[in-house]
């Protein structure tokens, strides 16, 4: 929704009353104050609100085209992942464009998306133009039909005068009936069934303009169009409440044009030819005074304003006609009637068409346009769905996570089939890896499991880092076998652990049994580590491919 003070209206050169979306009773733009952020619905500034609510429609914060495009975009976004939408909107809208009121922000967002993704379906402008085109066509049709109807009804060849009844019934009676039907739709609305202002003509117009828009936009997206219109017509859409008033406005445009055409047709014949009017009836009781009373009642709305348009009794008496005799009945006037008198019905007929035809239609048109504009201006831009969109637009886009993908890991190694365990009863050496506490039960548990006598105990991997014996391991273990390395389960078989095992292997030779016992050593107990950690140690040491290296959980106390 661009600021109308700074951007010219594009496209339509139609007069405002027939133009798309932007309306005003007199067709002028209403100046409002500077745009202010509004939390809820878009209202005009308070100072002008009272006056506007009475006479002039509020400036619509959302145009019809934007509303339709908004619905189309919301439908597309409904199934998209939230993260993708955030990134798209950040790329589409610059940071300085994300300030402002809700309506303005939505408008800028839609404009940015239209520019960014022109291949998507944004039918708003096309639909607006189609609707304007339909209105124009209906106006032209109405003018033509009205003109034609008046011409037909007032056709006078000189044989029989024009029957006032015919003109009244067609141009006034039928319209009064239609008006009553329209009013009943207001008073007894079908809105409870979700279908306000139903009418065959309106439904026809409602079916026509989307088809025209679809044709204008190309038929490549037929399915998408169908889905969109199904959604727009549903009660879940924002457009749903506005469309009935748009359609009413279109049909009343026809009605206004028809009446204008009829009036112009009448005037043309009255001014540029002579017409004789008469009235006649088969009913005996309907005499001149009674007929005068009837037409006087009809003329009451304008009689005070235009007395000449109220038929006098003399006019009624003078223009009673008999087709059987082919003459006016009054005082033997015959066919040579007073021209000024027999033509005097024209004022009454014009006034009747204007009052009972044109005026109600014009009022209905004004109500429809005002209502549509008001609905557009008061669109619930603070409903949950729109609020989420606005929060996404105005809020920060947060991205976390690694930029570079993680390199692949090699698979776990199986390791060679271990050689047989050393015979029992030997002497074993123990290496406590990384500060394994010298718990009293630890030595016993080792001796029990390995079935050996512990000859010597060493420490490795401590904090000082200076106790790595390297080649001196051979002397340190003093011939004991196996050499048992005790590691706690929560310590991983990392590079330092691998180096220790390699150092031991290098010092002890290829066939000396090495056993890694993975244990859980606490103040109050000594026991096996979890299966998962034992497995981790096995897999970690498998890369050494040492058949004389075994990994087992420490079995602990029986």
């Amino acid at each position, binding site marked *: 929704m661009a600021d109308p003070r700074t951007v010219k209206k594009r496209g339509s050169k139609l007069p405002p009353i027939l133009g798309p979306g932007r309306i005003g009773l007199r067709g002028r733009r209403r100046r409002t104050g500077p745009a202010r952020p509004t939390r809820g619905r878009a209202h005009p500034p308070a100072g002008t609100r009272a006056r506007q609510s009475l006479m002039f429609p509020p400036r619509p914060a959302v145009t019809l085209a934007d509303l339709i495009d908004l619905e189309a975009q919301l439908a597309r976004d409904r199934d998209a*992942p*939230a*993260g993708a939408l955030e990134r798209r909107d*950040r790329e589409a809208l610059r*940071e300085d464009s994300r300030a402002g009121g809700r309506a303005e922000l939505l408008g800028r967002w839609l404009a940015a998306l239209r520019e960014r993704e022109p291949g998507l379906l944004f039918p708003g402008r096309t639909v607006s133009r189609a609707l304007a085109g339909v209105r124009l066509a209906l106006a032209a049709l109405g003018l033509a039909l009205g003109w034609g109807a008046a011409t037909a009804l007032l056709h006078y060849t000189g044989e029989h005068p024009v029957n006032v009844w015919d003109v009244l019934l067609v141009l006034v009676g039928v319209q009064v009936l239609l008006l009553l039907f329209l009013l009943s739709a207001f008073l007894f609305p079908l809105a409870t069934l*979700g279908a306000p202002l139903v009418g065959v003509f309106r439904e026809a117009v409602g079916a026509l303009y989307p088809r025209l828009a679809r044709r204008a936009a190309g038929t490549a997206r037929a399915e998408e169009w169908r889905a969109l219109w199904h959604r727009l017509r*549903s*009660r*879940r*859409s*924002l457009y*749903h409440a506005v469309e009935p008033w748009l359609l009413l406005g279109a049909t009343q445009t026809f009605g206004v044009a028809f009446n204008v055409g009829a009036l112009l047709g009448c005037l043309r014949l009255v001014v540029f030819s002579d017409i004789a009017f008469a009235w006649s009836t088969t009913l005996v009781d309907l005499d001149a005074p009674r007929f005068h009373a009837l037409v006087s009642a009809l003329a009451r709305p304008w009689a005070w304003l235009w007395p000449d348009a109220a038929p006098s009794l003399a006019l009624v008496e003078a223009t009673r006609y008999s087709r059987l005799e082919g003459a006016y009945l009054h005082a033997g006037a015959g066919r040579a009637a007073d021209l000024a008198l027999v033509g005097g019905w024209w004022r009454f007929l014009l006034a009747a068409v204007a009052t009972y035809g044109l005026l109600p239609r014009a009022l209905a048109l004004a109500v429809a346009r005002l209502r549509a504009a008001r609905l557009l201006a008061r669109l*619930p831009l603070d*409903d*949950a*769905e729109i*609020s*989420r969109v606005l*929060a*996404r637009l105005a*809020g*920060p*886009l*947060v*991205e*976390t*996570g*690694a*930029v*570079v993908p*993680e*390199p692949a*890991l090699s698979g*776990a190694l199986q390791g060679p089939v271990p050689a047989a365990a050393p015979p029992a009863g030997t002497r074993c050496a123990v290496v406590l890896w*990384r*500060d394994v506490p010298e718990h009293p039960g630890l030595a016993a548990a080792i001796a029990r499991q390995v079935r050996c006598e512990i000859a010597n105990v060493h420490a490795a*991997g*401590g*904090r*000082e*880092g*200076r106790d*790595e014996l390297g080649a001196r391991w051979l002397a340190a273990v003093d011939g004991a076998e196996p050499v048992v390395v005790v590691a*706690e389960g*929560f310590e*991983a*078989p*990392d*590079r*330092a652990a691998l*180096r220790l095992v390699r150092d031991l292997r290098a010092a002890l030779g290829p066939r000396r049994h090495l056993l890694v016992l993975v244990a859980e050593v*606490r103040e109050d107990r000594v026991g096996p580590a979890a299966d*998962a*950690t034992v497995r*981790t140690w096995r*897999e*970690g040491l498998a890369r050494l491919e040492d058949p004389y290296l075994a990994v087992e959980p420490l079995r602990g106390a029986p």
Partner: protein
Amino acid sequence: MIPAVPRFAVVGRVNKGKSSIVATLAEDDSVRIDARPGTTTEVREFPVRVDGRTLFVLVDTPGFEDAPRALAWLRAREVSAAERPARVAELLRAFEGTSEFVEERRLLAPILAGASVLYVVDGTHPYRPNYDAEMEILRWTGRPGMALVNRIGTEDHAAEWRRALDQHFKIVRDFDAFSVSFEERVHLLQVFRELRPDWRAAVDEAVAALVAQRRRRREEAAALVSSLLVDALTHTEELAVEDEAAIEEQRDRLERSFHDALRAREQEARRRVEALYGHREARFDEGPGLERPVYRQDLFAEEAWKMLGLSPAQLVAAGALAGAAIGGAVDAAVGGASIFAGTVLGGALGGGGALYGVGRRYARVRSIGPPGIPGLLLDVQRYWSGARRFRIGPHAQPNFPWVLLDRALLHYDSVVRRTHARRGAIAVDAGEGARAGIVAEFARGERRALEALFRRLRRDPYDPPRWLADDLERAIARILRRVDPVPGEEPSTGELPGGPAPARGTPAR
């Protein structure tokens, strides 16, 4: 050298949860977390970007693997305290291109480049003196740092760790990467700002953005849940059957299709909620207590309906069974399992017939036709022609939307509580008490208001008005605000327009 963008290097020994902490803070469940040592082999950066600007960077590093030897090398030459950072830099240069101290050189490089230190230990394993070497090396770098006591196992040795860590780090925090809440994550990030005063603005901005994002995600999740409810409560399927002999088979097929569609819709909603919170690789499963032949509890499982949704008394109070209680007009379009609640409440209310259908979980297929005389004429025509039309849905069982909502809330609760460090399946916790769900703890006014929305949806399944979906979404958003409150937010009272204030603001779990 102090980098312009705050950088925090997460360091520690292998398998102490460094990557888990990074995964949790960066909300990245693709970070490899493995029991094998050396899973992290390279330094990886996890920038936290807001609107395209990097506000701070977390650096995941390989773990210390040979710290004592490295420290021994550093100490091999006597240096003053001021020269220690240079000595550490010398270590990196001296062994460049060799296989010595590979991990140590990699993890120290970002620290020497200006990153602050986040030293991670596992507080569920005992402290051992050899860890001092790591802390000492980090102290030699001269960079500000803090220690995080992670929790991987089940034991608690945090106290002994703190005694050691307090001597090396001025800030020591507990941080269980596997179960930390969003609020705790935010608090930790706020502690980061204490490491360097000139980084405070960036960290504060990042925290504010994360909080705003969390709030937005919650609103999106409310939309997903309400959309699920709307679709489920308005879902109908129809079928025309020409062949009289195939009617039963077609009816069964229709019934299966209907319930499968509801299941699929629920699954879709769940996946979208999980993706919303960045859980792309997670699996969420119903708790082990609800055992079924299938691994995941089915939407229409009997146990689920016994434990979730509202109790019969609550359904009556919410008005779900008002019509049934008054006129026995419970929708007979449900069929299936036994009426488990009829005996209980039927006795209490003295009207077991009014609860007909409370325990039934499945919707039933029924014949359709237009109402009134046209319908009769059409039925006559169909009778002679043999063509029949069937419809199933909307699902009219009073407890169905409540069970669906309960499952959605339980799932949501599991999602928001799950950190991105977790791997594998995680049980969806059920609540405690006779009923395992959340909705049973709602205030009466809230239940009644929701029930009114559910009934209106059912009544208008083909074209529900916008305001209805909007009201439902707002109601769900209020509930989610209680499930996942965002730091700095006023606690949701759960008040609904026109409803009384709830008895409790937070559902019991």
